[in-house]
């Protein structure tokens, strides 16, 4: 059993109910089904289950929380290979095993400390694209000192200092295509 809060953002009722039932019966998690991604709810919950449509629709909200987002796919493609995902055509045992592995990993990791804010994600994206601090400041209409402060926080949260390293992290996490 896992002491985690979960929300489900899925377009259709049957998939939403199916995931909710599996989470309850196999893991004792009372997940809430919501129909639109609300910043506060997403920020406060431990794990998010989203379908491909909602993943695309709320990408900016989900990318910073990629490590605690699970994409529910119904087609075999590589678009979500870097995300944690479950395939709704798999049999129930496989789905339960996949979710169990994700929950185990999540419960062993202290995610909130390394979670980037939306602004930090924007700065990271621009750093990874090779913009200078001055260009980032102009682009985001903030001062260079604020850019430096964001960069310092990004490095502290991720443990990554070099621009190349930040670029790789951004690609690993879908921040940079």
């Amino acid at each position, binding site marked *: 059993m896992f002491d985690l809060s979960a929300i489900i953002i899925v377009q259709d009722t049957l998939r939403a109910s199916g995931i909710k039932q599996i989470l309850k019966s196999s893991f004792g998690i009372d997940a809430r089904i919501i129909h639109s991604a609300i910043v506060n709810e997403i920020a406060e919950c431990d794990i998010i289950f989203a379908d491909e449509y909602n993943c695309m629709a709320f990408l900016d909200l989900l990318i910073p929380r990629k490590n605690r987002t699970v994409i529910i796919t119904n087609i075999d493609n590589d678009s979500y290979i*870097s995300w944690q995902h479950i395939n709704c055509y798999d049999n129930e045992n496989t789905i339960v095993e996949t979710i169990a592995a994700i929950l185990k990993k999540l419960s062993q990791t202290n995610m909130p400390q390394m979670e980037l804010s939306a602004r930090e994600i924007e700065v990271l994206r621009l750093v990874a694209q090779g913009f200078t601090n001055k260009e980032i400041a102009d682009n985001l209409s903030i001062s260079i000192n604020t850019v430096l402060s964001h960069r310092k926080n990004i490095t502290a949260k991720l*443990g990554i*200092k*070099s621009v190349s390293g930040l670029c*790789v992290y951004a*690609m*690993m996490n879908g921040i940079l295509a």
Partner: protein
Amino acid sequence: MVLIDKDKKLSDVILEDPSIVTVLNRFNIFLGVGDKTIRQMCNEKKLNTDFFLIILNTFSNEEYFPEKLFKNFDAKTIIDYLNCTNNYYLHFIIPNIESHFNLLIKRSTDNNTNLELLYKFFLEVKSELINRIKTDSNELFTKIISLNSNFIDTNEPSDEALRSISVDNAIEDKINDLVNMFVIHLSGNYDTNLCLAVLFAIINLKKDICQNNRIRNKILMPIYQYLLKPNQDNV
């Protein structure tokens, strides 16, 4: 901090810190050391015992760095050691990481794209490290040896050589980032044993470079600057 002394058995030194084997290789000492003491081994291999001891102690104790003792040795002794170390990186550590990394990616069952990105990052670090080693060998070390032999070379050192001795931690930062990406951010499925093999090899490289940099930047660089002075006075 207990320092290694010349009457200690080399086998005991290895058993207390097995990673020191990688340093012994640079002095042409390999496993199967028997029960010889450090002094006996140095006599057999015709090594400078004091220099060998300083290197062993510097490698095994992060807090230990006897700058004054190091400066008792001539530049050539230090450069010979740094060359051996660089060769060890080029011919053992880097190929070892590379081959394990390739195997790790091959054995990854679900095309783990994160591993491929990390591998590309490693190749960037490798390329920069090789460039630095080449500049050290071809420019910096050669220059120091020629200055040290009282050869008055009126040519100014190239910009590349000067850059090479600056205390630049860009490569070290990237290696550190690589380790952190494995430890903190790796996701997806992978072969655990191979992944640990890659990670440990990178961590060993990181430790080794860090120890090596202290000798390169704190001992060799001041020698270089000292040697340059009279040379420039002569120009």
